[in-house]
């Protein structure tokens, strides 16, 4: 008996919510990046779920794309964090507000 889609949707919703909370509340830039990964993965779950339900391969293909793009994005994000750390001796985002108006 397959898992009903509503369960999966609720799960992915919760996962997304955790990611959002992580992005909004955590100070460590790396944790924020990780939270972003969580949100992406919740989206991936939705893709796969709907792909299976609709008998379409494109859901899984999109997930693969997303994972690839996420890998690139993390590479860039970590490079920024590294540069930040070199310049500021910190990766806490609340200490970095040079763009304050």
């Amino acid at each position, binding site marked *: 008996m397959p898992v009903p889609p509503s369960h999966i949707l609720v799960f992915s919703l919760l996962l997304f919510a955790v990611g*959002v909370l992580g992005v909004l509340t955590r100070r460590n830039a790396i944790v924020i990046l990780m939270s972003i990964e969580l949100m992406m993965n919740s989206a991936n779950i939705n893709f796969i779920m709907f792909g299976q339900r609709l008998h379409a391969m494109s859901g899984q293909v999109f997930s693969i794309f997303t994972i690839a793009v996420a890998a690139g994005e993390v590479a860039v994000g970590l490079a920024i964090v590294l540069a930040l750390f070199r310049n500021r001796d910190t990766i806490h*985002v609340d200490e970095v507000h040079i763009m304050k108006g």
Partner: protein
Amino acid sequence: MAFLGWLFMIPLFPAAGFAINGLLGGRVLPRKAVGYVACGAVLLSFLVSLGAVLGLGGAAQLPAAPGLTVDADAHRVTQVLGSWMPMGRSASGEEMSVDWAFALDPLSAVMLLVVTGVGFLIHVYSTGYMAHEPPPAHARFFAYLNLFMAMMLTLVLGASLPVVFVGWEGVGLCSYLLIGFYYDRMFDEKTRMSCADAGRKAFITNRIGDVGFVLGMLTLFWATGTLDIQGILAKVGGLPTGVCTAAALLLFVGACGKSAQIPLYVWLPDAMAGPTPVSALIHAATMVTAGVYVTCRMAPLYLHAPGAMLTVAIVGALTALFAASIALVQTDIKKVLAYSTVSQLGYMMLAAGVGAFSAAAFHLMTHAFFKALLFLGAGSVIHALSGEQDIRKMGGLDKHVPWTHHTFVIATLAIAGIFPLSGFFSKDEILWAAFNRSPILWLIGAVTAGMTAFYMWRLYILVFRGEERFSEEARHHLHESPRSMTVPLAVLAVLAAIGGFVGIPGAIAWTDGMADRFGRYLAPVFEAGGAAHGHEAVHATGLEIGLMAVSLLIAVSGLLLGWIFYERRPEMPALLAGRLRGLYRLLAEKYYVDELYGKIVLAPYYALCRGAFLFDKWAVDGVVNAAGYVTLATSYISVGFDTYVVDGLVNLAGYTVRGFSWMFRKVQTGFVQSYATAMIFGIFVLVSVYLLSTGH
């Protein structure tokens, strides 16, 4: 004849002398050269004048030479040098213009010879008198003197009133310059008048007369349409008497100023501030006679204005008497002579006023001789006494300065009118003419003659006779003047002695050929112009000889009285002055005329000036200041409006922008997480709105 063509050069020689001495003298030219240039220029003038006058004797027979117009009837030669003021055509189609023209006729010939001749002698005298001046002042003196000669000769020769007026003003200028020659010295301690003040006084007083002269000139131009003297005189016959009287009186105002008549005589006594040769040349012999000369020149005009004639005669007679009475008690040697000059000028005016124009010219000439001699003699005395001018500090000089003494005696007797010296003839001619007009005028003239004899003999005795009252220091420097001064004295003495023989009255002439040669020489001038030879109309030989005897008697008694008062009984004058204290004060203070003028003319004038000043200060400046204040106030308002309203609006816009910016800046925290929060909140809101609006 040749010399007549050189007429224009007569004033040019002294003008050239003025230019040379004025530009080069004192710096380049040595002292001697300055003297030679000045005297040489005048000598050349004199020689050319002499040639011209001799040539004029035959002018009537000679044809007109190029540039010369000969009027045989009037015995006149006119030389036109060029047009000065062309004025187009008059309404009646006549060409109107003023030419630079010189005219020589017997009247100007007499003036010409007197001015250049006496002028030359005084120039020579001045080289001695001014020898101790520093070089710049020395050169300045001779330059001015030459300029004066040039101007005087222009005046004498001028054929039209404007040319005469150029000379008239020119001599006034030179008079001013020379009176104020010692401009840094005090002239009158009592009234704190400096020599420069005296010059100014002369200049301004003359200015009053000059206004009259100009107005007279304009009246004549208005009435006759010409300014040429002969052109005017030819037309006066057709003019109404009123116009003639007005013009004649206006010209006489000018003559009053120049010839020091009442009421404008006040400058002449103060003109004695100038060096003595100047007093002799300008203020005795030549310039002051210019008024008499112009009156004689315009004789036909005066003859058409009986009222003006009478005025001239009365003013002349009163001036003669008035000035002579002041001269009685003056103590400054030059002041005595100055008042004497005023008095003698009054005589000349009297002569002109009674129609005896040739007698006026005759007296003008003889007066030039003996008064120049008196002044030069006085200068020699002053020179000898190292500058002393007070006759109370002189006396007994006859032994020390014999040349001066002898020539002075001749001049004194000449002015007193002792037969047969020159003054006798000219004065007698005037008295005779005055008697024919009115015995009262004769009486005034006769009394004046007596006074003249008295004060001149008083002057002579106080200066040359009696005990020596001068200081020891003056005695130390006491010396007879150098040859350059005594020779002119001697020449003038000869002229003063025999100058009268040219005008022996017919009544006592031995032959008809000798009788009144002077009058006959001048006759063409006055006859051609329509002027009758006034005093020739009446001939009563016996009466004339009788009057002559009376006037001679008066003159002798004047001298005798002077002798008694000052030589025989020297205590008498003080006694009399004590007895008639009031009269003496009145005379010594010159009738308080200067004070009177100060009160009635100067004081109101100064008050007017002060009023004008206050008006200027308060009214005119007030309006200007008020305009300024109004502008200032407007500016303040404008500034306030600009600052608070215009700038306020601009600033308000700025502040508004800044206020909003301030608010929006707060949003820009720089924290990425706050942005993300806002974004998510926003998405939440948008999604909520979408869901709610679509009804799901």
